[in-house]
């Protein structure tokens, strides 16, 4: 059920990207899609009553191995957050440039290129 909700979030982002006419809304849609993927990966690695996969001096290794959540998806999520930050920076740079050229964020008015 949780996974399905995450997928619904993914679809909301996809919907915004495809149907919206405002560049800002399109960027927001892409960000939501990326966030939903991050959430999905994190939920996959969770284990009931889990602890963070960071060992401290008080915890024994046995308890750590038995309780810690999956570290691999977390590493992937950090990487993917950074990637989406890069994409967003580039997107905003292009959007601001487009605004300067056309004076609007509305793609219906921007569309100079044909399909």
């Amino acid at each position: 059920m949780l996974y399905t909700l995450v997928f619904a979030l993914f679809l909301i982002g996809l919907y915004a990207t495809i149907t919206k006419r405002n560049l800002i809304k399109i960027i927001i849609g892409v960000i939501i899609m990326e966030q939903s993927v991050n959430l999905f990966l994190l939920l996959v690695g969770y284990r009931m009553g889990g602890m963070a996969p960071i060992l401290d001096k008080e915890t024994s290794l046995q308890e750590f191995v038995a309780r810690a959540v999956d570290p691999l998806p977390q590493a992937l999520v950090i990487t993917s957050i950074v990637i989406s930050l890069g994409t967003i920076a580039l997107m905003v740079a292009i959007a601001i440039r487009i605004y300067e050229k056309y004076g609007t964020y509305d793609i219906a008015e921007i569309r100079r290129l044909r399909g």
Partner: protein
Amino acid sequence: MPEKEGMSLIVKEVARLIAPPIFIFGLYLTLTGHLTPGGGFPGGVVFACGFILVVLAYGGKRAFRRLPPEGASKYDSGGALLFLVIGLIGSLVGGHFLYNFIQAALPGTVFHLLSAGTMPLINIAIGMKVAACLFMVVMALTLFRLAGEKGGES
């Protein structure tokens, strides 16, 4: 966005009080990435936010005399190259690219700052790189209007 003279006196004072802890926090996150939550990337972002705070509070002109955005590109490339060079040294010493050669030679004590081999070094490299490049891009975005007026549009 930044006015030439910066923001009001209160903002400047607050920024002066807050900025050092922000930098220390960024440094802490970067250096202890292998022991606690954090790491080079969030540390670098915190650092960049500190720089941005200073520039926004004091205004472009005065702040850029101290931290010119053009100089940041040196640290940006330098950090990335440092990471690559660590990898290359690994391949020369251990036969595998990105091999953790320091850990193999000097294991260090676990739970101490000097442990985990190349990891703190890579964290520093990433932190340097991320701080520099994010600072640069935010400055480029905020100063964009100035740039657009000066530049010869084609």
